[in-house]
């Protein structure tokens, strides 16, 4: 289904992403991280919450390789995982 066929005059208006587009990972530089994330999902019965660590690692990989604009991980919804990683880091 490529179009939303709805009755009435409501129509689906796509919205662009908040932070823009990911460039394509043409060379598969982060494929290993993606595989690890997918493995985690398979093992956890596709529970997204169980695999946030792997998701964070994938995004970090992209940022390290200029495949994603650098953004503090706390702002991407990983605040609690960062806190776990380094308890001694001062809260900004």
């Amino acid at each position, binding site marked *: 289904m490529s179009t939303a066929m709805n009755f009435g005059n409501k129509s689906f208006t796509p919205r662009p992403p908040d932070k823009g587009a990911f460039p*394509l990972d043409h060379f598969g530089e982060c494929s290993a991280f993606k595989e690890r994330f997918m493995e985690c999902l398979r093992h956890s019965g596709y529970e997204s919450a169980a695999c946030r660590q792997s998701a964070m690692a994938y995004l970090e990989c992209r940022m390290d390789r200029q495949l994603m604009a650098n953004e503090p991980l706390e702002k991407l919804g990983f605040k609690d995982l960062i806190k776990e990683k380094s308890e001694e880091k001062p809260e900004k």
Partner: protein
Amino acid sequence: VVPGETALAFYKAKNPTDKPIIGISTYNVVPFEAGQYFNKIQCFCFEEQRLNPQEEVDMPVFFYIDPEFAEDPKMAKVDLITLSYTFFEAKDGQKLPLPGYQ
């Protein structure tokens, strides 16, 4: 996926032809009413993406479901939201109509 929690999903695209293709994608969310709660932080969509001959790439989407979804009585019976993408071949000068997007 828990409303309010950021999540990652992957799609895969392949160019099965022998020439590079420049594609652009748009998305759809069903059920329709859930679409307003679907927030994309970052994805591969809306911009032209070039796929070389026979190239296959992973296409990530980083998103979250607005926590207000859990408060909306109309969404009480919704436990499955489906996100789909359609790729179009981009023609020169063609832009998908996106009000307010630069």
